[in-house]
């Protein structure tokens, strides 16, 4: 048999700590991010409420996956899954995923000094952003930003696109070509020139990203991460896929709830429209798709460790992303359709979900991207 991975015994665990995080995150997100709060932030420059962000840091959420020596709770990256799922359910956008991924990259590929200097500040709420997107399909070819030595420091040249949370970030982790090698480099926001950040107009108005011109930024050679670039990048992309999957699973569930509520109250032709099977059965398909997604994200959470991801973990993260964005796309699409004329309006909350679905599907690779890579893991010997 060539099927290497999917015959492994299935792991699906849910620790007491994860349960407590899920309960407190659910309550926190519900109270801090009701739909009015979400809408109030749509035109906000940073896209999030800074006091809510500070509360999240104070709750220790930015440190759940960080070892105690760097100020964290050392519960493993799987503990971020329930937090992000709840954020997704409440459409609570913050730089949580970006900052978590940068601290994970540092823990996995940083030097001792880099970990000691930067990770505790991220745990305390310093916003960090990942500037590693090279092309629109999230493939891993062609780093174009260069970092050339002027004898003592590195001078950057080039542009990164769609850098999430760039405007809020105090620290960037950038993929660069330095001495012909692809490497990861820490760049403080203070090193950027004026007007280096040009905000994007996003389909999901709850999010923020920007085009960042790193040209002219000068940073110390010591800001290069010594870890293996390919391994760290692969793991960060997979963790990004899992966190985006967790958020999407939460958003899809909220989208389904909004639609179900409408189907229970809207009458046409003298009947509640939720009694029509043409609307009922797709809702069941959506429920089952979300159930699948939820199983996959917690399965992935159960197989991740602090070391480089193995094939089981890789497959689990990819399955989680492929399944959850398909679920969210489906839920968002049907939410608009099933709200009828109301669904076509900006006023209807269905737009928040269908817009989020379009953004989330591409982030860290769309479903086809992950299935293509799963095929290699699962079908090729």
């Amino acid at each position, binding site marked *: *048999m060539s*099927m290497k991975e*999917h*015959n492994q015994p*299935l792991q*699906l665990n*849910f620790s007491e700590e*994860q*349960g407590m995080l*899920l309960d407190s995150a659910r309550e926190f997100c519900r109270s801090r991010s009701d739909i009015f709060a979400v809408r109030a932030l749509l035109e906000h420059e940073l896209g999030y409420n800074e006091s809510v962000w500070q509360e999240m840091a104070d709750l220790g959420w930015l440190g759940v996956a960080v070892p105690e020596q760097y100020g964290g709770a050392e519960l493993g990256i799987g503990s971020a899954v329930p937090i992000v799922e709840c954020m997704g359910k409440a459409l609570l956008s913050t730089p949580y995923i970006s900052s978590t991924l940068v601290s994970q990259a540092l823990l996995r590929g940083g030097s001792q000094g880099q970990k000691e200097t930067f990770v505790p500040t991220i745990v305390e709420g310093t916003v960090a952003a990942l500037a590693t997107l090279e092309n629109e399909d999230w493939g891993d070819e062609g780093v174009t930003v260069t970092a050339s030595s002027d004898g003592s420091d590195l001078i950057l040249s080039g542009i990164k696109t769609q850098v999430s949370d760039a405007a809020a970030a105090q620290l960037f982790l950038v993929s660069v070509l330095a001495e012909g090698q692809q490497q990861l480099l820490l760049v403080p926001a203070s090193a950027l020139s004026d007007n280096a950040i040009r905000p994007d107009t996003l389909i999901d108005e709850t999010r923020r990203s920007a085009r960042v011109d790193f040209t002219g930024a000068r940073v110390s050679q010591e800001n290069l991460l010594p870890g293996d670039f390919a391994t760290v990048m692969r793991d960060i992309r997979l963790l990004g896929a899992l966190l985006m999957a967790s958020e999407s699973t939460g958003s899809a*569930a909220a989208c*389904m709830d909004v639609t*179900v509520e409408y*189907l*229970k109250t809207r009458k046409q032709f003298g009947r*509640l429209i*939720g*009694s*029509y*099977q043409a609307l*009922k*059965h797709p*809702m*069941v398909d959506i*429920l*089952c798709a979300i*159930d*699948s997604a*939820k*199983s*996959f994200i*917690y*399965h992935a959470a159960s197989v991740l460790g602090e070391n480089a991801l193995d094939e089981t973990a890789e497959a689990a993260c990819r*399955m989680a992303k*492929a*399944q959850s964005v398909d679920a969210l796309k489906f839920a968002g699409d049907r939410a608009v359709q099933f709200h009828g004329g109301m669904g076509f309006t900006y006023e209807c909350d269905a737009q928040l979900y269908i817009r989020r679905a379009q953004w989330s599907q591409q982030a860290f690779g769309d479903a*086809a991207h992950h*299935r*293509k890579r*799963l*095929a290699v893991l*699962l*079908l*090729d010997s």
Partner: protein
Amino acid sequence: MQAEKPDPAALGEFRGEVSAWLADNKPQDPGFLLPQTFMEVGSEQQLDFLREWQYKLWSGGYLGVHWPEEYGGRGMDPTFQGVIDSELRRHHTPITFNVIGLGWAGPLILDIGTPEDKAKYIKGILSGEDIWCQGFSEPDNGSDLGNAQMRAVRDGDEYVVNGTKIWTTMGNYAKYMILLARTNPEAERKYDGLSFFLSPMDVEGIEARPIRKITGEYGFTETFFTDARIPASCLIGGEGRGWSVAMQTLQYERGAAAGSAGGQSQVRVVIDDMIDAIRGLKRDGEPVLSDPFARDELVKLIMEEKSLALADRRSRISGLCSDYPMSLPLSYKLRVSEYQRRMRQVAVELQGSLGGLYVGDDEVPAGGFWQRAYFNNFATTIGGGTSQIQSNIIAEQVLGLPKS
């Protein structure tokens, strides 16, 4: 039942014993296609083969081991039968075909039958000598079991039964039927008018006509009752209690721990079997497994199979089921049956031109196994409540949507 609680070492030893026995006693390939499920026994040839296999398994001491010794079991803990069942799957043995007896009637009789019932019925169920069938569905009441219209009228120490049952598995071979019939058409609630019988089949006025399926084969009958007189002693659970007895009966088939005698009612087919079956085929001159369309389809299927296995795990972790606690249990049948149908459908599709051939053709891949399996799988997406009825139930009970 005095059963000794097994320790892991005893179970491990027992597993070894069963495995060795199966290696020696598993039947050879008979040279004709065997049924994959108990709903597909369509010829005397298949029946004889399966009956012989079940007898061998039971007399070897590996079927219904947790049933009482006096009735043909061994009085062991159900965990031992669970070990046997997993070894049967692992050794890819044929099915234990007398499923309605082993998983439905037998445990029911052990639970609520009289000592006479137990002495009369249980051993024949285990040995395969007495085949049982199930008379629940009717031509006009497929998914709506509670609306069953077959009439049973008390006349002295007999009931006179009139009406028609359909989708009776092995109705033409069965000695007994578990029968749901209406004894009181005036009952206020339709459910309260039903009674449950252990009916003999060899009675004047009962005729089982085989139904030819889309596969061209047999496996079910339409069963006609015309003034059929069955003994009043066949009533089980009391008159008017038929619905709750029927619901109780449905609980056993979940496995040995739930009361079933064990064995396997179907040959498990997983995605790896399908991938192995198509591995040698080609598209555009290249192995089918390198074709981008095939790869994407196969990955989707692998994911769904994995997701179903994870659903089983997750349903036991309440903290991960708090949003919709009944979602996973109520949707499992829908998802598994639809997945299995889809997987078999893709297996036919990926055969290309060969998918146009059928059972009986010399060139058809795997003797037409996948073509036939695809068609037969509709028994699971239609039987036991169609996928569409399942969707209604989930929409109403899980999502709280209004009734259709």
